[in-house]
C-alpha cells in the first residue's frame, strides 16, 4: 500500500550553499490531515509550496522526490513539465493562504475568481460553472451565494473571504488541500468556524489535508499526523495523539511549554481596588463619519465605541479583548489622547498617587507634552513600527530628543540602559532594524516606549505578530518590567489565552460595547456572556481530548441580535452592564 502523497528527502536551497530545507520527508493518506508545525523560518511554508510547484524564482530544489498517486500510478511531480504541473495545480492539489484579504485580487469579483478554477480545468458551460460556484458558496456557508458571487473582496470580512478562498480551493474537488496558516489572520471565533468547515468538507470528500500552522491548539483540533519542523529540518514526526500527549523532542516540548492556555481553574483573585486610578475613562463613545459614495448623499455614522467605562488601577494591567472591529483599538487611541471622544466622554490620567488627575483631552501644549512622556504605546507589528532607515540608537533617543531631554552622552547611556532592560545588548545600538528578528524588534519597540520613563504603557496587540515561543518571552518581559518599574498597562488583545496570564482585569468588547468585565480567574471560571463563552470555547487547546465546541462558538459569535433574550441587543434596546458579583459585570437584563 503506497501513501497518497510521499515527500522524500526534499532539499531546497536559495543562493547560499547550505539548504533552507534539508532532507524533509513525510507522507499522508487520503482522508488524513497532516499538520506541519513550526515557527516562522522553519521552512514549513516552503515545503508545501514545493508540492504545488509555486516556489519563488530564486529557490532551487536540490534533491528529493514528491510522489503522488495520480489515477493509480505513482508520479514524481517534481519531474513533471510545467504544462503537466499546471494541470494538477488547482485541480488535484489546491491551496489556501494565510491572508484572505490580500490573496484575492481586489479588482475581480469573488465569484469570477472562484469560477476561473473550473474554466481552467473543466470543459463545461458558463451556466454550469456558475451553478457549481453558487453551490460551493452555499456549502462553505454563504447565506446569499448570489450576492457573494457578485461581490468584490473589499466588500467582505476576513472570515467570509477565507470561506471564498476555501470555495476556490474546493470547487474542483481536489485530492489534496494545502492550508497555509489558514486562520492566523482571523479572529478566534472565526478561526473555530473555518477549522470546523475544513473538517466537514474533508469528511465529505475524503481529500487529504496538509495544514501548516504554528498553533498547537489548531493541530490538536485538526490533525491525524504531525510533523514538527525547525530550521528546515523535521524534528519530530508521528501520530497526532502520540506527539501531542508525549512529545519526545526537546523542541516540541519547548513549543508546548510556550503555548498559551486558558487556565481551567484558578484561585479566586479579587478585582484590583479602584481607589488609586492611573487612567479613568468615563462614558467614552466615538462616532465616525463614513464618507458616502457621492456628494449628494448624506454621510453615514458608525459608532465604533459606545458608552465605555474603563478604570485602570495603578501598577495593574487592564486587558481589553475583542474581535477586529470591536472598538478596542479606538479605546486605546482615545486613552492616549490621539483621538477625541464624543461629547460627554472624559479621560483622566493621574501620574502619581495623590497627584491631581489631568484631563487628557483638554490639555495645553506643555501639559500635553508632559502627559505624552508619561503615557507611551507599544505597537502590534514590530516589522513596520520601526523605521528601517534609522539606527537603533536614533530610534531610541528620538523621544528624548523631541522632549529636549539630556545631553547627547546622557541620551546614549539612557538608550543603552533601556536596551539592556529589555534583554538586548548595548553593543547593538548602531544596528538597523533589519538585523533583528521579530522578537528582538518587539523588544526594541518596548525599549523605545520605555526611554521616557513612562507610567502607563498602552500595548496594542504586542504579541500577535510573533511566534508562540517568542510571544511567551515578550509576555515575560512585559510582566517583569511592569513589576520592576511599577508600570500600568492598558493591554489590547484578541487572544484570551495571552490575556489570562498578564491581566488583572479583563474587559470583553463586542460592537463597541463592553459585554463582560471581570478579573481573569472569574471570567474564565465563570463566564456569563454568550460572547465570552464563545471566545473561550473557540480558543484551540493543544490537547487532543478537548476539541473546540463549535456549538458554543456559534451561540455567542453570531450577530448580537441572536443572543439569548437576557443578553440580546434589540435595536436600540441594549441591556445595561450589571454587576452580578463583586467585580464581575455582565451586559444583561436583570
Amino acid at each position: 500500500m503506497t501513501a497518497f502523497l510521499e515527500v522524500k528527502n526534499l532539499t531546497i536551497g536559495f543562493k547560499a550553499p547550505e539548504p533552507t530545507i534539508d532532507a524533509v520527508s513525510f507522507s499522508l493518506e487520503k482522508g488524513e490531515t497532516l499538520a506541519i508545525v513550526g515557527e516562522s523560518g522553519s521552512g514549513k511554508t516552503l515545503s508545501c509550496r514545493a508540492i504545488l510547484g509555486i516556489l519563488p524564482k530564486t529557490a532551487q530544489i536540490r534533491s528529493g522526490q514528491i510522489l503522488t498517486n495520480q489515477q493509480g500510478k505513482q508520479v514524481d511531480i517534481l519531474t513533471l513539465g510545467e504544462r503537466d504541473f499546471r494541470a494538477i495545480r488547482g485541480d488535484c492539489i489546491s491551496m489556501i493562504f494565510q491572508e484572505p484579504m490580500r490573496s484575492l485580487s481586489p479588482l475581480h469579483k469573488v465569484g469570477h475568481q472562484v469560477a476561473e478554477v473550473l474554466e481552467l480545468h473543466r470543459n463545461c458551460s458558463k451556466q454550469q460553472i456558475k451553478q457549481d460556484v453558487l453551490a460551493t458558496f452555499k456549502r462553505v456557508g454563504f447565506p446569499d451565494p448570489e450576492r457573494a458571487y457578485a461581490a468584490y473582496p473589499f466588500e467582505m470580512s476576513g472570515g467570509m473571504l477565507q470561506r471564498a478562498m476555501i470555495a476556490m480551493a474546493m470547487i474542483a474537488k481536489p485530492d489534496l488541500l494545502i492550508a497555509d496558516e489558514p486562520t492566523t489572520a482571523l479572529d478566534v471565533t472565526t478561526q473555530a468556524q473555518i477549522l470546523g468547515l475544513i473538517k466537514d468538507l474533508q469528511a465529505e470528500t475524503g481529500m487529504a489535508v496538509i495544514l501548516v500552522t504554528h498553533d498547537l491548539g489548531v493541530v490538536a483540533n485538526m490533525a491525524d499526523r504531525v510533523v514538527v519542523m525547525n530550521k528546515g529540518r523535521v524534528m519530530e514526526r508521528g501520530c497526532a495523539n502520540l506527539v501531542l500527549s508525549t512529545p519526545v523532542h526537546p523542541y516540541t516540548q519547548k513549543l508546548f511549554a510556550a503555548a498559551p492556555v486558558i487556565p481551567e481553574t484558578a484561585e479566586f483573585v479579587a478585582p484590583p481596588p479602584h481607589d488609586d486610578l492611573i487612567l479613568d475613562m468615563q462614558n467614552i463613545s466615538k462616532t465616525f463619519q463614513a464618507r458616502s459614495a457621492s456628494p449628494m448623499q448624506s454621510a453615514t455614522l458608525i459608532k465604533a465605541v459606545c458608552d465605555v467605562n474603563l478604570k485602570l488601577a495603578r501598577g495593574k494591567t487592564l486587558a481589553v479583548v475583542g474581535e477586529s472591529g470591536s472598538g478596542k483599538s479606538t479605546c486605546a487611541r482615545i486613552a492616549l489622547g490621539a483621538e477625541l471622544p464624543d461629547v460627554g466622554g472624559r479621560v483622566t490620567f493621574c501620574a502619581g498617587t495623590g497627584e491631581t488627575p489631568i484631563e487628557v483631552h483638554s490639555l495645553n501644549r506643555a501639559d500635553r507634552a508632559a502627559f505624552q512622556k508619561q503615557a507611551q504605546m507599544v505597537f502590534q507589528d514590530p516589522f513596520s513600527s520601526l523605521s528601517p532607515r534609522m539606527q537603533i540608537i536614533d530610534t531610541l533617543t528620538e523621544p528624548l530628543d523631541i522632549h529636549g531631554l539630556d545631553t547627547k552622552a546622557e541620551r546614549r547611556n539612557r538608550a543603552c540602559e533601556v536596551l539592556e532592560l529589555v534583554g538586548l545588548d548595548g553593543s547593538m545600538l548602531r544596528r538597523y532594524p533589519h538585523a533583528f528578528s521579530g522578537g528582538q524588534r518587539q523588544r526594541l519597540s518596548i525599549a523605545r516606549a520605555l526611554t521616557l520613563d513612562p507610567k502607563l504603557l498602552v500595548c496594542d496587540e504586542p504579541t500577535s505578530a510573533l511566534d508562540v515561543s517568542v510571544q511567551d518571552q515578550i509576555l515575560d518581559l512585559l510582566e517583569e518590567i511592569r513589576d520592576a518599574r511599577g508600570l500600568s498597562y492598558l493591554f489590547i488583545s484578541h487572544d484570551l489565552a495571552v490575556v489570562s496570564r498578564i491581566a488583572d482585569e479583563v474587559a470583553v468588547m463586542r460592537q463597541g460595547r463592553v459585554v463582560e468585565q471581570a478579573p481573569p480567574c472569574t471570567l474564565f471560571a465563570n463566564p456569563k456572556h454568550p460572547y465570552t463563552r464563545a471566545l473561550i470555547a473557540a480558543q484551540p487547546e493543544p490537547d487532543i481530548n478537548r476539541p473546540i465546541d463549535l456549538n458554543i462558538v456559534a451561540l455567542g459569535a453570531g450577530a448580537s441580535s441572536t443572543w439569548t433574550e437576557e443578553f440580546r441587543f434589540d435595536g436600540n434596546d441594549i441591556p445595561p452592564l450589571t454587576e452580578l458579583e463583586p467585580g464581575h459585570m455582565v451586559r444583561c437584563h436583570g
Partner: protein
Amino acid sequence: MIILRYAFYRLITMFLTLLLVSALIFFIINLPPGNYLTNQIMELQATGQDAGVAKAEFLQHEYALDRPLVEQYLIWIGAWPGPYGFSGMLQGDFGWSFEFDQPVIDIVGQALWLTVLVNLAAVLFVYLVALPLGVLAAARSQTWVDYTSSFIGYLGLATPNFLLALILFYYGQKYLHLPIGGLMAPELEGEPMSLAKMNSILLHLIIPTFVIGTSGAAAMMQRLRANMLDELNKPYVETARAKGLSPTKMLMKYPLRMALNPFVADIGNLLPSMISGSVLVSVVLGLQTIGPALLTALKSQDQFLAGFILLFVALLTLIGTMISDVLLMLLDPRIRYGERK
C-alpha cells in the same frame, strides 16, 4: 448609473475649475505693468508718431483695456457688457490679437486641431510603447530584456527633444524619405480636407510623435515596470498561480490590471506636460501648432491671444483628468464602491 452620476459631477467641477483657471490666467498675464497697447503708445510717443497714438488709444477704449482689471476680466469671459454688449468667451468671441492684427480665432483656428492631433498621437505613442515594454521588463526583470529596455528608456529620457528631432529628420529623410518640417506638404495648406491632405498629415506626424513621445514613454515604462514588480510580489499572484493559470495569462489578468491604475491616472498629467514640452519642439520642427503662437503672444503681452491659448491648454488638461478619473472608476471597483460600506 454610479458612473454617469460621477461623470456629471466631475463635469460640473470641471467647469468651476476652468472658471478659476481663467481668472488666474487673466490676472497673471496682466501682472507685468502695462499691456500691449500702452507699450505701443509709449513707444510711439517716444518716437513722436502722434497719429499712431490716437489709434492705439482708440483701440484701448474699443477693447475696454482702460477699465478696471476685474471688469476687463468679466468682459473677457463674457459675463459683463463691453463696449459692444456681451461678447466674450462664453459668446464664442475669443478676442483680437494685437500682434497679428487678426481675430484670435483666425490665428489659432487650424493650429488648435493640429495641436490636439499631434499631442493625441504622442499620447497614443506613449501608451503603445510603454505598456508592452514595461510589462515585459517587469516579467523578465533582471534579464537582458529588462536591461535592454531600461537602457533604451533612459536614452530616450536623457536625449534632449530638439536634438532627437534634428537627428531623426536627417536620417528619416536620408533613408526613409520622410518629409522635413511642418505638419503637411506646403501646397496643401489651407486646402479643404482631402485624402491626399490626410495622407500628408499622417506622414508628417511620424517624427513629431516620436520626438514628443519618447521621453514620456520612457518615464511611463519605468513607472509601469516598478508598479508591476510591486504587484508581482502580492499574495493574489500566488493564488492565481496555485489555480494553475499559465504565467502569461496570469500576468495579464491580475497584476497588470492592478498596475494599470497609475498608468491611467497619468493621462491627465501627460497632456499638459506634452503641450508645454512640445512648444520648443514645434518651433524646431516648424509645426503649425499653437506652440509658436503662444511663445510670440507671451513675449509681446498680446493678452487675448495668450489668454485664449492658455485657457485651451487648461481645458485639455481638465478633460484629460476627467477622462482618467472616469476610466479609473470603470477599471477599479474599489474606487467605484470604495466608500459604500
